[in-house]
């Protein structure tokens, strides 16, 4: 280890290290009259001018007083430019530091902040004897202020050697001389700051980041100020200081983190079927903070695709069950509940009949799609709104803002009920038959009595209150059934038991994703914060008979160009090829570059029903390009294959299944 210093304390460090068994390569002291040592070499009047080693220090180069340079092998280099009083607390309380020429450092002022007494090294008294005397003196002054009698205390004898040092700010002539090692600021950066006329210390700090953050001027400020003083021809006190603040001693970052580490970093949300899903060996994925079952592997399945394909086919052929509790549920009540939703959603809700559910699209104020979901009207003055899992909190916040700030005169009350109800999707041609075994017999589930988009308060399993919605994300005949969360575990077990005769299976989020792509339903990938209702193929849904958030700005010409992106489906021309998400569409014969880009793939999957990969994509003028063969490319991965533009509704485009 080598030490580079301009003061006697650098030598004390070397002596301590030597005593602890560390081999000292040399002490390099800029002073010609540096104290010498019997134990190790001291290079008086030397300077460290360079260092070598890529992943660790291997040697330093030292310029000697005679002008020669010497290489010195070492594994570490300690540097000390002397002491600065710890003035952070004074400075934090707006005590303006004063320059002390004797120790070449800033000290707390005599008339500092009221009620703040500074003693010892923080005042610039660096020897132990000075520090003890100054501490006793200040303590007595405080006691006197408080009217407490002072006791004479004999101070212990202590070391009182003066802190000999010669100010030395940086090694001249180096290509890169670091000033602030925490923020990677070099002497050159300070010179550049000066050259760009950022001369004031406040500008210097912000231009270079010198002394910011954890450093707070402790190691770097003096050097930076000295260089600026040199460049501007001022003295250091004329240049002045910025305000630096505590923490004035290092605080381990672990102390800030506390117990918030690893799995304790944030809460985990579990669905009511979690224990049951674990018993089935489900593979979970974190969505928001929820753990959702991604798929349910069965014996013999070695690849996730086998599980997912099976779940999709079993649902489309008979019936599947999926925990959809994680979707946000917002209870909207009040005399103006319908008026309120009519303003929140871009499509109409005022005339929705009691006992009916409607798909709703929310726009941001700038006309871009924000979230989608359903609203079920349980009474004239009572709706239940669903949101996507990821946006449950932000949509609730948005609605609360609208209620409190935009339309405070409306009579509307909102409360989240996401956690209060366990909700299961029951989907597939046998969904009704299965539900009939669970729903109490007085409720008629026939297509006439409870058609597509119906909703009702019902009872299940002999009298438990429940809510039933006939809505479908998968495109199948499907229902969502909700029971109080404490019965969620019992409900999934009952549904699976009742579904045995239909070979009912549980399906996870992957199968859910495949089925919604097959059906052409938009999800987070399509509502990606850059797309409008028009892009989603729902342009006509934005009602012009009323005002709603985002309706006006969705009419901006830039969002309504003739070649606007439209949601389409893609199929590979060679069914063996994938259709990877993120790939871009190019017109055949056009060069592959950004200027000729025609669109991009948002969602992709393997469809076990079609026997090939399929995708949803945004394509310029996509609605008039069905049947066109295009190039799908990914220059990054070298992917380049032909795809056919098709309808986004791969399965049941007429919607016969979900109305069955």
């Amino acid at each position: 280890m080598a030490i580079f210093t301009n003061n006697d304390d650098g030598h004390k460090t070397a002596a301590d290290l030597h005593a602890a068994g560390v081999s000292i390569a040399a002490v390099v002291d800029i002073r010609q009259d540096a104290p010498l040592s019997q134990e190790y070499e001291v290079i008086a009047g030397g300077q460290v001018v360079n260092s070598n080693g890529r992943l660790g220090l291997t040697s330093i180069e030292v310029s000697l007083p005679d002008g020669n340079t010497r290489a010195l092998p070492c594994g570490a280099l300690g540097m000390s430019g002397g002491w600065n009083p710890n003035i952070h607390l004074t400075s934090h309380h707006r005590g303006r530091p004063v320059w002390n020429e004797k120790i070449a450092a800033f000290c707390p002022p005599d008339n500092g902040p009221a009620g703040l007494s500074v003693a010892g090294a923080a005042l610039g008294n660096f020897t132990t004897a000075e520090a003890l005397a100054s501490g006793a003196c200040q303590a007595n002054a405080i006691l006197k202020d408080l009217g407490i009698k002072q006791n004479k205390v004999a101070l212990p004898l202590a070391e009182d050697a003066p802190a000999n040092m010669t100010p030395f700010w940086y090694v001249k002539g180096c290509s890169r001389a670091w000033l602030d090692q925490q923020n990677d600021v070099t002497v050159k950066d300070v010179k550049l700051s000066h050259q760009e006329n950022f001369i004031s210390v406040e500008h210097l700090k912000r231009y270079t980041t010198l002394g910011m953050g954890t450093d707070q001027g402790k190691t770097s400020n003096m050097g930076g100020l000295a260089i600026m003083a040199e460049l501007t021809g001022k003295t250091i006190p004329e240049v002045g200081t910025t305000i630096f603040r505590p923490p004035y001693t290092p605080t381990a970052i672990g102390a800030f983190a506390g117990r918030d580490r690893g799995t304790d970093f944030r809460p985990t949300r579990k669905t009511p079927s979690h224990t049951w899903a674990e018993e089935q060996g489900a593979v979970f994925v974190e969505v928001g903070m929820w753990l959702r079952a991604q798929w349910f592997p069965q014996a013999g399945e070695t690849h996730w695709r086998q599980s997912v394909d099976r779940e999709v086919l079993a649902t489309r052929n008979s019936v599947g069950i999926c925990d959809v509790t994680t979707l946000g549920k917002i209870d909207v009540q009040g005399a103006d509940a319908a008026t309120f939703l009519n303003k929140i959603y871009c499509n109409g809700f005022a005339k929705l009949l009691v006992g009916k559910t409607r798909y709703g699209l929310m726009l941001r104020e700038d006309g871009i799609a924000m979230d989608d979901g359903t609203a079920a009207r349980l009474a004239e003055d009572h709706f239940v709104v669903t949101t996507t899992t990821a946006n449950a909190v932000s949509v609730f916040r948005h609605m609360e803002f609208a209620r409190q700030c935009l339309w405070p005169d409306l009579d509307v009350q909102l409360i989240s009920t996401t956690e209060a109800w366990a909700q299961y999707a029951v989907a597939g041609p046998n969904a009704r038959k299965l539900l009939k075994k669970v729903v109490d017999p007085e409720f008629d589930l026939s297509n006439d009595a409870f058609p597509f988009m119906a909703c009702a308060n019902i009872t299940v399993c002999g009298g438990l209150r429940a809510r039933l919605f006939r809505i479908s994300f998968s495109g199948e005949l499907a229902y969502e059934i909700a029971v109080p969360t404490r019965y969620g575990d019992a409900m999934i077990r009952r549904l699976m038991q009742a579904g045995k005769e239909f070979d009912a299976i549980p399906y996870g989020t992957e199968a859910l994703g495949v089925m919604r792509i097959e059906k052409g339903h938009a999800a987070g990938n399509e509502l990606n914060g850059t797309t409008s209702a028009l892009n989603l193929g729902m342009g006509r849904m934005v009602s012009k008979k009323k005002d709603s958030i985002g309706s006006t700005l969705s009419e901006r010409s830039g969002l309504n160009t003739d070649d606007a992106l439209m949601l389409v489906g893609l199929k590979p021309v060679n069914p063996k090829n994938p259709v990877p998400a993120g790939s871009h569409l190019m017109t055949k014969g056009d060069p592959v570059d950004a200027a000729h880009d025609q669109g991009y793939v948002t969602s992709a999957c393997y469809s076990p029903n079609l026997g090939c990969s399929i995708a949803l994509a945004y394509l310029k003028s996509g609605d008039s390009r069905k049947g066109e063969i295009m190039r799908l490319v990914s220059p990054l991965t070298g992917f380049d294959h032909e795809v056919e533009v098709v309808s986004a509704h791969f399965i049941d485009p007429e919607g016969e299944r979900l109305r069955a």
Partner: protein
Amino acid sequence: MPTLLTLRGNVCVHNLSATTALGGTEPRTEQHGPITLSEEPGYALASVAARKGGERATVLAIRRIIGPAAPKPNHAAGNTVTAFWTGPEQWMLEAPYDSHETLFAMARAEVKGKASITEQTSGWCRFDLRGVGLGAVLERLCPINMTKFQPGDATRTSIDHLGCFVICRALDHISILGPRSSAASLHHGLLTSMRSAY
């Protein structure tokens, strides 16, 4: 559309078994040092939010339901059925589940359309801390000034990133209501703090 249910007395008749928020069939209880932490599934909850112009009627209805006057901000009040303040013109009603499973229906009948009532029973998990020296546990978890937290005080705070209600029932008895899906995380946080404090 009325909420339908088959009642025998005040209890729903059906053949499903409930699980607690921690996923068991029986509530969990832990003891550490002088403190007992218990899972309390035996309470029904219903939110009350006054409608426009129904503010006065709502306050009166709450008094009819709980006995004393509707609690002011940061307070709870009541006997068998209690209420705590949750926001401007908003309260949560709480009552023993076995006798008041349909608390929301009772409240809805009482407010006569002057307030919106929502069943919240299964939306929350409730943990009770009992023992002398609860301040040492709570002050590690949330910014409530425990030296001034008296019986009848109720407040909303954040505990391990979870929005929770904290209600002082007695000097040696505090209830914490948190989101049900995160019951295990909240329980872990409370236990960790108990072990840190004692």
